[in-house]
């Protein structure tokens, strides 16, 4: 313990909302000449600072638009912050919008290799784990069918199975407990719980306070991009419940 694995230091993220979206050359040149190119800055996150220690399970609470997903994407390395720095230690597995990276024309089996490669796994590793992935996804013979014929639940199941086949040091969960049917949901929750035992660090976004209490030991609250509270999960969820009433 006492080992910091995620360090978020004075992080701000600005999105530029131009009053009209200019995405072609013609408009860009005309507006540039007329000097109509104005941008409105919108800070999705502002001056957020916190640290997460190894083995902590941190719930991130906040209303829609508070900046929760932006924060997760920054930590996952998908985006770079406008201000401040983020340091992470260890392999991060983001379970965000599972299966979004699939190629629709590829079969499930081919997508296991493709998606595995996207997540940075080696070929040998995927080969070794291939069976385990197929079994866990419960897709059976559908694994040789192009993904475009899958239902959204089947896609999410496959995505979940691929992403969780490694032992991550940091696990990022964005309400993925809503994967598949009730049976698979139970199974995936069990799988994630089994990961907790290995002392994995977890970041968990949810609107369900009960679920956060059940899973996390710490929590933070975001409001309009700023961090307004952090601490033990009981105190924070009480604080948050009062706040949203």
């Amino acid at each position, binding site marked *: 313990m006492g080992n910091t694995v995620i360090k978020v230091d004075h992080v701000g993220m600005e*999105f530029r909302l131009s009053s009209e979206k200019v995405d072609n*050359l013609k408009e*860009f040149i005309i507006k540039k000449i007329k000097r109509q190119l104005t941008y409105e800055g919108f800070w999705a996150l502002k001056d957020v600072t916190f640290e997460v220690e190894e083995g902590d399970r941190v719930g991130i609470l906040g209303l829609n638009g508070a900046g929760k997903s932006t924060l997760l994407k920054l930590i996952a390395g*998908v*985006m770079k912050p406008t201000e401040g720095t983020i340091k992470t230690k260890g392999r991060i597995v983001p379970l965000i919008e599972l299966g979004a990276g699939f190629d629709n024309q590829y079969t499930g089996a081919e997508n296991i290799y493709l998606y595995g490669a996207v*997540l940075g796994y080696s070929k040998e590793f995927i080969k070794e784990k291939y069976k385990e992935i197929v079994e866990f996804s419960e897709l059976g013979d559908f694994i040789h069918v192009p993904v475009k014929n899958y239902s959204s639940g089947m896609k999410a199941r496959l995505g979940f199975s691929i992403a969780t086949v490694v032992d991550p040091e940091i696990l990022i969960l964005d309400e993925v407990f809503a994967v598949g049917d009730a049976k698979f949901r139970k199974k995936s929750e069990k799988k994630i719980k089994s990961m907790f035992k290995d002392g994995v660090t977890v970041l968990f976004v949810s609107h369900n306070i009960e679920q956060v209490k059940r899973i996390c030991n710490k929590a933070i609250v975001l409001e309009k991009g700023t961090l307004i509270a952090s601490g033990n999960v009981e105190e924070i969820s009480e604080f948050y419940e009062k706040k949203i009433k």
Partner: protein
Amino acid sequence: MKQAIRNFMKYRYLLSELIIKDIKLKYRRSYLGILWTLLEPLLTMLVLTVVFSQIYNRQDKLFPVYILTGRLLYSYFGNATKAAMKSIRKNGQMIKKVYVPKYIYPLASVISQYITFLISLIVLFVVSLVLKLQPTKYMIGAIVPLLILPVMVLGIGLILATLAVFFRDLEYLWGVVLMIIMYCSAIFYEPSRVVKNGFGWILDINPLYSLIINFRNTVIYGQPFDMQALTYSIVFSVASLIIGVWMFYKNQDKFILNI
């Protein structure tokens, strides 16, 4: 730099997966599959030969080889730059959700197109055999323009990929530019016709033609390189690669906000 290389090593498997995917999917649903790589240039060669040997009243036996050498290089240039330009937007869903080094997408397009291009060179080989093109020692030099070409394509592809994220209409604009380049590359006419009319400079500044001329010199005419064209093509390729890498690197963090 070290970091960049380590990162590349980590994702080199993804690169090979993307290249294989490109090639696999391109021919998956067609009956003749990969054979189309050979049939397509062969058929266009036949059409162009018939049309232009009528127009120019050419009796040159090697005219089909002449057309093929220009046409094959041009279609790789056109297809690969277009694919690289679209690659970032096409993979936008992926880029938005998971971290991957983004240059891997245009790089994969350029390489996968290069592989199909190399396969399509079989057509040139067979047609040359059939038309009894005399082999010379200069033929080995054909490798040089074939090696410069992907560097040039990658450089231009990176520039286009970066710009296309911010300006969608570039895709249409580039189609027009490609057409201009086609007409300025002496694919189906003799360059002497253009030079005679005082437009030789168009061929001189066309980087693609500087490769085609050396490809033809070595393959068809049994001549050494046109040194001026060779120098120009190398300088152009290296310069476009440097500019492309720099532009891409400078802007890649902004991609996600625009796709």
